[in-house]
């Protein structure tokens, strides 16, 4: 028993990711943790999307199933599992079966390199960002296959439109990513890095998040990536391919029950994946806000309290809403449920105050908070903007974002190499 504790604690203070250390057991543990965390995040996203959209539209959203609709995602999951699995009669069986599989595999494999902390990634490839872009472009294939295998007009048109849109915006995404990767090479040895952990460490070494670097170039590159990532994941306002009123749900029209939930799972995972890319490249990954401006031990200590305070605040909101519940005997179970949920959140908050835990959880907490902020912005876009027509969408991708991306790339390269250019021009 003592050896097991010693083995675990000796591992937790290592300075390499499990993949780099070659330790298969910890790699599997991390994979399980990331998979579980991702599933919980997708379920929470389902609930959050319906509630936040409802509140933006001045209505309440799901309130019946659990207290304030908290168990609604579980009800949805049970419904999807119990639905009849329909396969169209003329559909190509093998391709119909493979399409959701490919989309889900592509969306989940991306998380192998996502850096939750300097050693908290499953592995750290030195082509990390290239791997993420490549594997997420494999989901386009799954969508094309899904549309074709359904053997009907609406899914085929929806799939072709959707994949044309995804391929067009991948170009703008790639240009924005390259201009951020170029900023990692502004160090003493002049070599940049493509590894995700290396990019965040470059931001730490240069003392500035890349979104603020060479103002406004970092900001414009971030903006291009933000627009392109919303278009890449087929989310509003770029969701013509799967909107209900347009193409009767597009490429996943003929999928029902569990197969549809696989597409849905893959869509939310892809959203979280591209948000992780944006957070790593521009928003400083796991670094806390103001890493250099407010540096020093007292500020580090103050920021250490923020995870615990966040969970205690959420618990306080739960208790406040418990008191506002209607005092009717039919609501007794819901009131007790909400109070229990508040107690659980409060306990998590108290655990996060313990110094041994909070030091290790810091990086993961800041990364998750930034990605959660992106998720809120996704839902905000959905509730605010009207849908783009398909030709307006393609025009935006090719005629606006692509030239902007090229311009940002050239300007970033020029400004980054300015000392060298100066030297060459004036002291030949």
């Amino acid at each position, binding site marked *: 028993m003592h050896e097991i504790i010693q083995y675990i604690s000796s591992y937790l203070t290592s300075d390499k990711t499990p993949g780099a250390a070659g330790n298969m057991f910890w790699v599997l543990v991390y994979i399980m943790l990331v998979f579980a965390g991702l599933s919980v995040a997708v379920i929470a996203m389902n609930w959050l999307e319906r509630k936040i959209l409802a509140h933006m539209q001045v209505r309440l959203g799901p309130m019946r199933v659990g207290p304030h609709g908290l168990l609604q995602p579980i009800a949805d999951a049970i419904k999807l599992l119990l639905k009849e699995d329909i396969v169209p009669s003329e559909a190509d069986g093998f391709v119909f079966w493979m399409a959701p599989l490919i989309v889900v595999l592509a969306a989940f494999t991306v998380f192998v390199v996502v850096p939750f902390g300097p050693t908290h990634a499953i592995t750290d490839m030195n082509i990390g960002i*290239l791997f993420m872009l490549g594997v997420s472009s494999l989901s386009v294939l799954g969508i094309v296959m899904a549309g074709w295998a359904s053997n009907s007009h609406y899914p085929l048109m929806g799939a072709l439109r959707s994949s044309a849109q995804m391929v067009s915006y991948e170009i703008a995404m790639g240009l924005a990513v390259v201009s951020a990767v170029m900023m990692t090479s502004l160090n003493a040895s002049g070599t940049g890095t493509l590894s995700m952990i290396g990019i965040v460490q470059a931001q730490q070494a240069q003392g500035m998040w890349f979104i603020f670097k060479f103002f406004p170039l970092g900001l414009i590159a971030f903006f291009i990536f933000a627009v392109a990532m919303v278009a890449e994941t087929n989310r509003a306002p770029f969701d013509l391919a799967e909107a209900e009123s347009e193409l009767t749900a597009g490429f996943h029209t003929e999928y029902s029950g569990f197969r549809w939930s696989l597409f849905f799972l893959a869509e939310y995972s892809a959203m979280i994946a591209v948000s992780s890319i944006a957070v790593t490249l521009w928003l400083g990954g796991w670094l806390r806000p103001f890493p250099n401006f407010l540096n020093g031990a007292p500020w580090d200590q103050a920021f250490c309290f923020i995870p615990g305070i966040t969970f205690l605040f959420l618990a306080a909101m739960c208790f406040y809403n418990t008191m506002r519940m209607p005092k009717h005997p039919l609501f007794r179970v819901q009131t007790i449920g909400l109070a229990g949920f508040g107690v659980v959140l409060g306990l998590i908050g108290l655990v996060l105050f313990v110094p041994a835990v909070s030091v290790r959880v810091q990086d993961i907490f800041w990364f998750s908070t930034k990605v959660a902020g992106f998720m809120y912005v996704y839902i905000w876009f959905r509730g605010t903007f009207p849908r783009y027509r398909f030709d307006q969408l393609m025009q935006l991708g090719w005629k606006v974002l692509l030239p902007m991306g090229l311009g940002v790339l050239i300007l970033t390269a020029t400004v980054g190499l300015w000392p060298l250019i100066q030297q060459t021009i004036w002291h030949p």
Partner: protein
Amino acid sequence: MLIGGILVITRKNPVHSALALIVALLAQASIYLMLYAPFVAGVQIILYAGGIMVLFLFVIMLVNVERSMKERQFNSQWVVGIIAATALGGLFIAVYTKGNNIFPNHALRMTTGEAPNTQGVAIMLYGQYMFAFEIASLLLLVAIIGAVVMAKKRI
């Protein structure tokens, strides 16, 4: 990769052939990984499997495939096929066994895993082979302009 390649040429349904080609290309990417070239593997996945195969699938799906699936398959030129395949196979074996003296600087030997592959490719591409790089990008530009000219409606 072999299975993928064999499935490409034996399937009747062109979409199944395209999927088998995707499998073969992904296997090619893993072969690049085994040769200590992760950058080339990543770029292979992005460009080939994620870009070019999507274009293949677009064209296959927009063309009426049922008529071509009902046509009778024929291979009446199998003699010429066997001669060509044997000649190509002999060429590959000759280069593999005696190839070290053909290429300059013994370039046929495997690189070590020391320098990161991205840096190595970048230094070679923008240093020694800069001219070839510029000519290749000019070729791509000509292809793009040709596609636009052929597909436009009017000026």
